[in-house]
């Protein structure tokens, strides 16, 4: 089932039924992106019978009234280019496996693996997300306006993932080329075995950062709880400052003042565990 965003066609659920499902996440300080509805209120969704002037091409799914299966099967064979998901209710695998350049706005909180394996879509979650948001992303842009649980962008190969709030443990675990920008803090064991890509953290990082890291680059503005095996602080050369400025800008953060690239430190692999050797036995 799917709803064109037309007057009175928002499905069975009315605003009054599940008001708490409407995200009220505020974008944290650094983000200055031109988002028209930072509080996540969809255009024309002020209540049942909302009008949709100017957004007729946006197809709306109300997960209070239809299923994730119906949503995903439409997104995998899309008939439109712009989608809006209402009342996500923390469901899992919302907008997973999209492989077309769609624009998808999820108005509320999502469960596990939201935008999983995204390949080309621009997906915005106007709320918080559970484990594994944009896991194994190939390309595209995923933005979470709230906080994220564990394994943010795990094994991602490409694209940009922005968490405007904070992220829990294992952020960027096993990342393989994805870029991740986190506005707040990240939890322990982040960038574990990170192979490639860049992880930018505007706040603090937890313990065991970059354990067994390969070639990924990590930038942290705040404190680091501790570095994992084979992860070391590295010199910020001009090319690093430049790529960091680019990443911040792409994420919607102006790379000046408090967020100037020079305020970040860079971490990466000492490459001492690249070859098995007896003297490494305690590091393993």
């Amino acid at each position: 089932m799917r709803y064109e965003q037309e007057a009175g066609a928002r499905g069975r659920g009315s605003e009054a039924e599940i008001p708490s499902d409407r995200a009220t996440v505020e974008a944290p300080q650094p983000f200055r992106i031109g988002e028209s509805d930072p509080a996540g209120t969809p255009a024309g969704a002020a209540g049942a019978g909302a009008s949709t002037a100017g957004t007729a091409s946006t197809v709306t799914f109300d997960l209070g009234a239809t299923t994730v299966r119906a949503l995903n099967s439409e997104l995998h064979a899309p008939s439109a280019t712009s989608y809006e998901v209402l009342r996500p209710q923390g469901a899992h695998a919302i907008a997973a496996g999209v492989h077309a350049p769609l624009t998808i706005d999820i108005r509320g909180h999502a469960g596990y693996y939201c935008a999983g394996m995204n390949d080309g879509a621009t997906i915005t979650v106007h709320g918080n997300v559970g484990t594994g948001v944009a896991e194994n992303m190939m390309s595209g842009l995923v933005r979470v306006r709230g906080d994220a649980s564990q394994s943010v962008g795990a094994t991602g190969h490409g694209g940009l993932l922005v968490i405007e709030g904070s992220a829990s443990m294992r952020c960027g675990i096993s990342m393989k080329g994805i870029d991740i920008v986190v506005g707040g803090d990240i939890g322990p064991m982040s960038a574990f075995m990170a192979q490639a890509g860049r992880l930018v953290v505007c706040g603090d990082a937890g313990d065991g950062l970059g354990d067994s890291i390969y070639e990924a680059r990590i930038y942290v503005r705040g404190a680091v709880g501790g570095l994992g095996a084979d992860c070391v602080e590295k010199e910020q050369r001009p090319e690093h400052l430049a790529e960091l400025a680019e990443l911040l800008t792409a994420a919607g953060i102006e790379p000046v003042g408090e967020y100037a690239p020079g305020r970040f430190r860079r971490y990466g692999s000492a490459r001492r565990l690249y070859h098995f050797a007896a003297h490494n036995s305690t590091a393993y």
Partner: protein
Amino acid sequence: MTGYPPDPASLGLRESHTFDRATIAGIQRAAMTGVYDIRGGGAKRRLPHFDDLLFLGASMSRYPLEGYRERCDTDVVLGDRNAKYPLRLAIPVTIAGMSFGALSAQAKEALGRGASEVGTSTTTGDGGMTPEERGQSKHLVYQYLPSRYGMNPTDLRKADAIEVVLGQGAKPGGGGMLLGQKISDRVAQMRTLPAGIDQRSACRHPDWTGPDDLAIKILELREITDWEKPIYVKIGASRTYYDVKLAVASGADVVVVDGMQGGTAATQDVFIEHVGIPTLAAIPQAVQALRELGLHRKVQLVVSGGIRTGADVAKAMALGADAVAIGTAALIALGDNDPRYADEYAALGSAAGFYDDFQDGRDPAGITTQDPELAVRLDPAEGGRRLANYLRVLTMEAQTIARACGKSHVRNLEPEDLVALTIESAAMARVPLAGTTWIPGQGGLL
């Protein structure tokens, strides 16, 4: 070589069982190098195995079927619980997951060719899907491993089934390894790693822990592939009864149980020999778990680890498996350990029949290598034909036994058709010791 030294036993020397020659060599090697031994292959120690079981052919109390004439079917459907397109295989012998990286591209292609020729499936491995193998495999199972090397949704959608790998029988609880000499540019690029490094793949999945999370992961995989493909869960045999129950609870359509004899491309010898339980001990546990859930034959059981002959296939199925998977035997069929390379094995300090340095990348047979000059030794078409022949023999052998037991389908073989030769195998396989009604250990919890 110029003749061997005399057998020490003929001089009256006695070898210690505790410190036998291999053990002594192991200590000497450790003292010399300071690193543990990493090798390929499976457990080498003698274990209770299918050889310890025998079939009770039909006579008075059972009716046999006519060999070669009366129909004895071998087809199997895998994963019809949830998937729109379950796998429909002509024979119940599949090719287990072996990575591109561990194996050459030619070897992967040969496996696909051989399997397709006889209507069975082959499986990718820890390193992604190559076009050669997809192109040549009619039924291709795509492994979803902790490392997620080369994992991408495009290949996922190209697969015919998805196998979530939790572990391998050779190393339950361990991740993969690929040593630098095998990380060629192509392998490195597929895995997003620097070429030439010693690479260790993760043993835990990066974005889920435990069965409750796995259930959501499986849901995601179904969503991404629009509920079309069967989802397998592969486990290394250890706490098999519980693991199978949890795998099924997590949503597996097919459970793959790999016993400790199962091969590996590169694992520490200490791990291969000392962790996990024999295939024989794992099957009844898995079957019990499925039966208790009311899902035996509904969630299919694929068993691997030391399958060599049609008798092994028949015994695994009689114990309750729906199909088996082979790794090592398939490589041997392609030409691994071929005596014609005797001199080259000797030059590597090994011998035909003993070669297990799959981690080393200098395989004379050109199978477990990324060296282009060695890899061209295996012609994929020719290797595929040999594998197809071997698979046909396994199937005919299993049918021979099934007919002798009066079964019109190999799947109809049952534990009741089996007896055990040893007390250990009777207890593990839960069939009576031959000539008795005694099944040791019955009455316990498991």
